[in-house]
């Protein structure tokens, strides 16, 4: 590897690290947005997340050297300190991601239930008004 290639790789690794941390931060934000039904914040955050995760994929590809050019010598351009930090940031992001995935599943179900309620109410049926309406069982197909 040339010296320029080494420098380039180090810069990319630094950007990668920054993005891991930013995406983790964004995930914390979006989970709060969901909890508080802040729809606009949710949408904006997801848009940012999409951009960041796409860039991370590209960088990951560019940073990993081709397997064919493996060298028996230890680090060809990688800073051991950087490796450690990327590892730690990556682990933290994965942990948040699992929580995010779980929250999305639970919340998606809530949204699905509410959504079917509202579409079933689109003037399709009549109901009685008056007292004790709350205590009636009703159903609709999901």
């Amino acid at each position: 590897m040339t010296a320029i290639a080494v420098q380039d790789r180090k810069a990319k690794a630094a950007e990668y690290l920054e993005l891991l941390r930013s995406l983790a931060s964004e995930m914390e934000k979006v989970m709060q947005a969901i909890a508080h039904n802040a729809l606009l914040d949710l949408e904006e955050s997801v848009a940012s997340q999409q951009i960041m995760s796409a860039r991370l994929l590209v960088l990951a590809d560019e940073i990993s050297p081709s397997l064919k050019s493996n060298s028996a010598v230890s680090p060809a351009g990688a800073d051991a300190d950087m490796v450690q930090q990327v590892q730690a940031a990556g682990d933290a992001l994965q942990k948040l991601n699992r929580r995010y995935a779980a929250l999305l599943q639970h919340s998606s179900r809530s949204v699905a239930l509410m959504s079917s309620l509202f579409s079933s109410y689109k003037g399709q049926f009549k109901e009685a008004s008056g007292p004790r309406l709350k205590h009636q069982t009703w159903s609709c197909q999901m």
Partner: protein
Amino acid sequence: MGGLNTALLIGIGGLDAAQGALDATSNNIANVNTPGYTREEAQLSELPEYDSANQITGGGVTLDGLQSIRDELLNMQINQQTSLQNAADTESSSLQQVQTYFSSTGTDIATALSAFSSSLVELSGNSNNSAAQQGVLAAGHNLAAAFNTTANGLTSAQTAANEQVPDTVSQINALTQQIAQLNGQLAQVPAADNGGTTQDQLDQAVQQLAGLTNISVTQTNNGETITTGSGTPLVIGNQSFNLQTAAGPGGLEEVLDSNGNNITSAITGGTLGGSLSIANQVIPGFLTQLNTLASQFATAFNAAQAAGTDSNGNQGAAFFSGTGNLSNAAANISVALTSPSQIAISSDGSAGGNGNVANLSAVLTSALPSGQSPANAYAGLVFNVGTAASNASTQSTAIGDNLTQLNNLQGSVSAVNIDEETANLLRYQTAYEAASRVVSTVQVLGNAALNMGSGTSF
């Protein structure tokens, strides 16, 4: 398929079941506008029995009606999620405790296994050195002790969870009695009050009950009918039905209905479901793995001993004992040798030979009958414990956020605009679909070995 009835969505108790149901539900989202859904399927029960004060309006939708059903739906979800979260919380706190026995504390099995292995390597290079021989014996003692400690830790966590069961059942019975009473009171409430504070108290009690166990709530003319996930009645009208507990053959508590039938396996949610899961499934699973390892390891090592001769000229005697009974092999494993001279070092019977040390060492790197080496078998157990603890904690936190969301929704809107609400829900769905793609991408990043040229992968 049944309707969007609260009864339908019960059975969503244990976390695994919840996952399955959630998957099924999210598949069903596409069926929201399925043809075949007709007005006739929407049932409003007991309508004909109302007196003439009820008017059936023609056409149009009253927002009041939608609002109250929306709230009811939210209430149902809050109860279900409370059930799930309490189960997850209960499991999580138990597993946090359990996993400390599998951390690198110095007295854990991994550390002891490592020291035992090293002592054998040292013996290989210094086979006639009494200090090296003593080192193997001492390391063997520490390894047995590590097994004992870990097994005892698991057992005591199991006992703690088990002891919660009768307590929780008492609390459940107190609540069902209260709900039955409130159902009776509800019948006395003037119709115009729409339930009033009695309804609020009822909702409160039901939510507390949901936190203790998974339930199904059905609105009837006589108040709320409450059953367990499998349909065992808990409250019908103003009558409640007590649950009981009885100790099973292994000392583990079983939950019985008022007729004495064992309904333990139907309890999958709430604090009770969490305690039962920990005591009856999760910890027994870990213990089985641990006991199997202890038993197979001892057997294999003793066989390697028997293949050689000790310093007294005798065939190697059993190094470990106490693993005859698989159900407590790890709690009982101990070192049977009383002197370093009993270690079977020689393979040719000569006083200076060390040929059998290689056989002893090989036990640590060879596959046990289970198919894995001792180290890998233990590593697998560590992974299972860590994953279980991590998942319970993750679920608990995520469900907590979802509950916050549901509570916020319940308290927020006083008048519902259907079109706006529908549009918002669509935006949520769209955002969530995009978000799940982000989740997948991040998972891919985590799985790929990011080789930054260090020669070691992530």
